[in-house]
């Protein structure tokens, strides 16, 4: 913020407006990007431990948002509590999904597990269409002051600011968990070598369950924050599960740091394309296309993604 103010004081007139426009785009790029990162986190967690791409992730994101809405508005629980509650509920929900549908598929080819997640997405779709959320649009009541925070000519809404802060706290928490705690390390160990994990007494099914559950937890948080910013529309929310795939691939599929960096890169590209290219030279909608073009170029240079692990081969 200070840096922005510093730069803005240096400028005047047209340049002032141009600069504040630039920073506005940077800010919204970071906001959008960090939400991408949080939404991508769940995919990374599941992929990391079990090498499965979860196509039902978007549905879990939507479910998390709807549960928060139902708790806050219909059961009138304070939003702080309902936010945490919905994360816990989705934690249990995702864990039972793993327990019921995927546990028996351990040891089967990964493609069958992926097909099951696609089926799961349809089932969750069907279930959500049975509730009012499937067809109607809702929006969260505003929890924070309406007027945005203004720094020079740059504005950021309270909702966005709080969303970004929560995102970074969660991502930091997850990184710490995987780096330092024995359970977190054991989850990485399972992704490395399942047989060796079993030999030291790690329960591989337990780790898969935990991976799904934590993915559910992060999905609920993501859904909640997205829902607060964009409103609760089922189509928008569940398409997030697919939109973040390029982010995950760019980050390297199994790296949390990769998801964060890739998320912010994607967010920035999208906002810059929307803010500077669209409307000029007869171009429109570049914000939707450009991220994919950049994704392709980066993958040409780094096929494992930005932070993907290379197989270590020793003979």
């Amino acid at each position, binding site marked *: 913020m200070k840096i922005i103010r510093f730069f803005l004081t240096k400028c005047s007139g047209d340049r002032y407006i141009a600069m504040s426009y630039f920073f506005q785009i940077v800010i919204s790029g970071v906001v959008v990007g960090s939400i991408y990162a949080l939404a991508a986190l769940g995919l990374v967690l599941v992929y990391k431990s079990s090498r499965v791409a979860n196509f039902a992730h978007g549905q879990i994101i939507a479910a998390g948002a709807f549960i928060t809405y139902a708790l806050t508005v219909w059961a009138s629980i304070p939003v702080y509590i309902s936010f945490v509650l919905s994360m816990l509920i989705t934690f249990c929900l995702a864990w039972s999904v793993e327990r019921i549908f995927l546990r028996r598929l351990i*040891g089967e080819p990964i493609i069958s597990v992926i097909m099951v997640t696609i089926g799961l997405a349809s089932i969750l779709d069907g279930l959500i269409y049975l509730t009012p959320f499937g067809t109607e649009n809702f929006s969260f009541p505003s929890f924070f002051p309406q007027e945005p925070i203004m720094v020079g000519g740059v504005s950021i809404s309270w909702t966005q600011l709080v969303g970004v802060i929560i995102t970074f706290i969660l991502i930091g928490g997850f990184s710490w968990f995987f780096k330092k705690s*024995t*359970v977190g*390390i*054991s989850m*990485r*160990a399972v992704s*490395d*070598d*399942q*047989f*060796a*994990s*079993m*030999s*030291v*007494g*790690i*329960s591989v099914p*337990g780790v898969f369950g935990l991976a799904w559950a934590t993915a559910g937890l992060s999905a609920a948080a993501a859904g909640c924050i997205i829902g607060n910013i964009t409103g609760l529309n089922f189509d928008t929310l569940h398409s997030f599960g697919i939109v973040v795939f390029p982010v995950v691939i760019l980050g390297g599929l199994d790296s949390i740091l990769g998801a964060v960096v890739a998320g912010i890169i994607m967010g920035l590209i999208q906002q810059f394309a929307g803010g500077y290219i669209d409307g000029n030279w007869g171009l429109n909608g570049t914000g939707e296309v450009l991220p994919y073009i950049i994704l392709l170029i980066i993958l040409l240079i780094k096929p494992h993604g930005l932070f993907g*692990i290379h197989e*270590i081969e*020793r003979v």
Partner: protein
Amino acid sequence: MDISDAQLNESSPFNERAKLQENILEVNNIEVVYNDIVQVLRGVSLHVAKGTIVALLGTNGAGKTTALRAISGLLKPENGAIKEGYIKFLGKDITNKLGTEIVRHGAVMVPEGRRVFKHLTVSENIKVGSITRRDGSEKINDDYQLMYRHFPRLANITNRMAGYSSGGEQQMIAIARALMAAPEMLMLDEPSLGLAPLLVKEIFDNIVQINRVVGTTILVVEQNAKIALEIADYAYIMESGRIVLEGAAEDLKNNPDVKEFYLGVTKGGGRKSFKDIKSYKRRKRWM
């Protein structure tokens, strides 16, 4: 019926030995079948006395690894199961139990080919071995420090990715990882595999040291009969899924058959060249 069974068992040589020493592990007549059709172990019985080093020797495909996996509850991934017999560890029946439970009971296996977690650092590899422990972080941390005293080589590479360390270091990591579970019995599957003779010596010295200092019982599976018999107190020799010979390591070392087949020494005492045993081997294969 019960009484006569008991009397029958009373007189068996196993039980006489069992009376002398307290057995930590008792494998009784187990048969292991893969995919419900391939029988690999045909009535294997072995006993490991507390605090000793026991070697399980044999050639390729004799069923040594299967026996070890049966004890450590790791047959499931290969679709195998114990169909007959039972395994008792510390007095509890662990037949067909899950690997996690068996580690909790205190029996940990170091898998063949080391199998370190390649993308985890050395210290993470070692730390993760304590996953089943519930006795507080202080004790675990003490044990963690102890590992670097057992394997001083590892102290210099704690932050290196385990996949980039040498074969000998990887074997040490794998042993340290298993020891972090504070096991009563450590099982090692071919610790000498693919290592230079000097390193093999170092690893086996480490194993003896762990047995002497920590008091961990050790069951080691080896093809390298020579070095295994040097450190073992008692040994079993397996062939085609059966135990064909057993005895104190000293006795086996002097057994003429063992000398000829496993130690490469003829009756005359000289080393036998490959040329001389070739015909025998070829005949054997056609049988």
